[in-house]
């Protein structure tokens, strides 16, 4: 599988670390809503199809990416920096 890092270009999956479901929202740090915290930590969307995920290019520039990937075909539909910004600097 190849993932196109917006900075480094297409790289083999071996350079990346999967960080899971990118749809999860972390509650505000001071939130006392335990159900929201539990959902954030334990519950995952696990679709058979397009999936919004976080990957880290740990064997490259170490940036975290938002990747939309099809879990049936492994086709990568899009990648972008998770943090935003720096996009203009990317390799097309």
């Amino acid at each position, binding site marked *: 599988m190849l993932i196109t890092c917006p900075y480094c270009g*297409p790289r*083999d999956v071996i350079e990346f670390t999967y960080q899971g479901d990118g749809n999860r929202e972390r509650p505000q740090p001071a939130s006392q809503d335990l159900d929201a915290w539990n959902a954030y930590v334990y519950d995952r969307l696990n679709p058979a199809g397009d999936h919004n995920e976080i990957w*880290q290019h740990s064997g490259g520039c170490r940036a*975290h990416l938002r990747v939309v990937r099809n879990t049936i075909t*492994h086709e990568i539909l899009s990648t972008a920096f*998770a943090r935003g910004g720096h996009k203009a600097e990317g390799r097309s």
Partner: protein
Amino acid sequence: MSPRRTETGGRIDRLRTIRFTFDGAPYTGHIGDTLASALLANGVTLFGRSFKYHRPRGLLSAGVEEPNALVTVLSGEVREPNIPATMVEIYDGLVAVSQNRNPSLAWDIGAVNQLGGKILSAGFYYKTFMGPVFGPLKGTRFWMFCEHFIRRAAGLGKAGTAPDPARYERMNAFCDVLVVGSGPAGLMAAKAAADQGARVILAELEAHFGGSANWSGETIDGMLAADWAQRTVGQLEGNDNVRLLPRTTVWGYYDGNTLAALERVTDHKEVAAKGEPRQRYWAIRAGTVVLATGSFERPLVFPGNDRPGVMLAHAAERYAVEYGVLPGQRIALFTNNDSAYRSAVALKKAGAAVVAIIDVRGDVSTEMRRLASEAEAELLAGHAVVATEGGKALTGLKIQRFDAMSGALSGDERSIHADSLLMSGGWSPTIHLASQAGAKAEWDPARQAFLPPTPTQRWIGAGAFTGSFSTAEAIAEGRAAGLQAAGGAASSAPVPVVEAAPGDPDPAPVFEIKAKGKSFVDFQHDVTADDVRLAHREGFVSVEHLKRYTTLGMATDQGKNSNVPGLAIMAEALGKPIPEVGTTRFRPPYTAVSIGSLAAERFGDLKPERLTPMHDWHIANGARMYSAGLWYRPMIYGLPGETVEQAYVREARATRGSAGIVDVSTLGKIAVQGPDAAEFLDRVYTNTFSTLAVGKARYGLMLREDGLAFDDGTTWRLGEQEFLMTTTTANAGKVMQHLEYFLDVIWPELRVTVTSVTDEWAGAAIGGPNARAILASCVTGTAVDNATLPFMGIAHGQIAGVPVMICRLSFSGEMAFEVYSGAGYGTRVWEALIEAGKPFGLVTYGLEALGTMRIEKGHVTGAEIDGRTTARDLHLDWMLSKKKPFIGSAMMDREGLIAPDRLELVGLIALDNRPLSGGGHIVEQLDEANPHHSLGHITACCYSPALGKYIALALVKGGKARHGTRAFVSDPLRNRFGPIEIVSNHFYDPDGSRMHG
């Protein structure tokens, strides 16, 4: 000259003789021979024994699909089992032996299995060997008794145990166009793409480029096809954009148009050049792949079709044309399609007598009749072979009238005397890679074959792969594919003209001749047509059930010969068309691939070694090293004759008595920098860092999001916006990723960078009552007294002329300092400290003494922060700030994490004054025979020189409440049982007066 070698023809070099042995007997062959062709030329007919019945078997094929002629190639002590003789290029000194026979290929006692006959039908294992329900053989014992013998009878070749001295390498390659297969289609594709300026890789699994051009006898561009192929290869060789990879099997089509290939670099050579790998594993990232992988000829299923001497028709053609070997003197052909007629003519031309062509079709075209007469063969249209004769070599066959529509046999049997029977059951495109790439093959009722699916990745097919079996089509498709793959426009230039024998690509839909006797579908695994029907009878009708129940297609040829005939027989039994039985999806590898090649450069070198700056000093000074993750760390610096325990006790005692020094360079170190660094640390750690003064350090604890303890360490504030975080050695990488994740994904608004600086710094921890005096004697540029360097204070100075950073902190519980210098100066500073310590009896100590002193102090490490413990379990709840949220704070008080029966950290003292062991369990009541009711376990233990006792840290239910009570260690694995006292984990100097000084 060997008996079956032709006088002329073939690409072998008859002037150069090669000597080799097979099963100990010496043979000769020529350059250009495979082991199969050379043995065949020597009149060998018996090549192997089948898996189940140990039936004698000869060559079926001339290529990778060979199921019968498997050999083990020996190279000294090293064995390479299960290699098809068809794929071994001979060289001087080659030693090959046959397999799965005892004592010899000719006389194999395993052949008694044939007497089992119908009892050993498909699935028989599942129906018996259950054994008695009672008595000494109940449960699994009877089966295991039988299995012992079954295992020894099963199996093909023998693996070696001697380490393989060969080298394997991986190569990462990039290209615009990867062409797989170098027949006319592949060559045209490579040429067309290369001419467009594309970066091209052309991979051919055999030793010679050209594929069918090498033996078809056709004419391309006015020259013999083989010459045309050679000319084209020559043109490609001269092109800088092209990499030609002979002997290279593309075996895997993975996601992202990444393909895996195996190049056999030196397998055909007597000796490898210096540094030359035996095999090279190519990981190829291709813009577009041209699949020009050709097709396989299928066997026909009829009684006795496995007798040595029965061979695929095109294989015989190849032996005759490419290798100058005739598979027999009197040859009969049995076919359901036109291609065998060309084979007949080729064999006739090579000098064999073609006695008959038996065609299941009643209606044979005029062109084929003409070819039959050109071969001077009797044409028996509307006939089928119903039996073969002979022992370890074919002597003849029997035929009957056959109706292709009904499959019915009629009339009298007629015998034909022949020493070679060639069969052709039609052709199956080699669609494996396309299937691996992710889509399902489609059945073509005209071709009676599975054709490649619609591409799911970037590939284009050409030639026989697509079901276009003529060379003219292959050339046209190949060129179009090459142009398209290279992004070029379609060309209107004329394609090379092909002159070839005519032929209808569509066979008659006949796969099996139903007559009395064993008809083999899967040769190697001895799966017969009756086995397929038995599977049907028992309900194992889907293609996967068929495979799994009968083992059809599970042999080393992976069903290349048996897949379609097996499906066809099942389809007939079901009364359904073939595609409704299902198609097998192919998975990597296309052909078996050596494990050595996949390990590649990591064979013999699985992981790199991580070394501290002082590593060589440790080795030179007698340290025994301990492997910790990838790092090597001194375990003890033993003196001659010392046990490990004696060494660490001496080291720890000397440290507490005067001073000791230990290499702490492996601790994870992360530079945390930026305007929001302090805020970030407040969020990451359970305690507060924003209040830490510049020039001071603080011990910190991190939790995971789920509220469990994650890692601990000290973090030093070097500047207002600059921190140096330390982590445990084991967790350095994980902590780094944790921090990066939060900065990148959760809090991108924070202006903080984190950088691994573990390797920037050499660290030495020097501790003990005289540590300060030693430092004072060698440090310049700063004082080290209490005022300048208070507990958790940081100072900058020089040692041995290089800058150092000193932090006064203690893991040992003594007055201690961590001295950091640039890693390139690590040994220099270390040696200076040792020199300065000499008057004080400074000792070097290793991990064992470090562990001993930390156990005495009750500090936690990875053995206690094991991913299942909370801060409270470890009595670190004092570090949980109530003033601010931090990672894990919201989750750490959930029901299960504050339950009263959780394991808590305690200390243990062995009351019988005997050593304890890590992993021993704690019980209230000792029951050595039937240990039960564990309360917890020992996480770390040692002999404590400070206490004069064997002590341990443990995680025990109820923990603190048990302080002062007695219990037992229960360690049945090491037969260690005995009384212990449960105490606080702070054994030694609990108020810390020694380190505070």
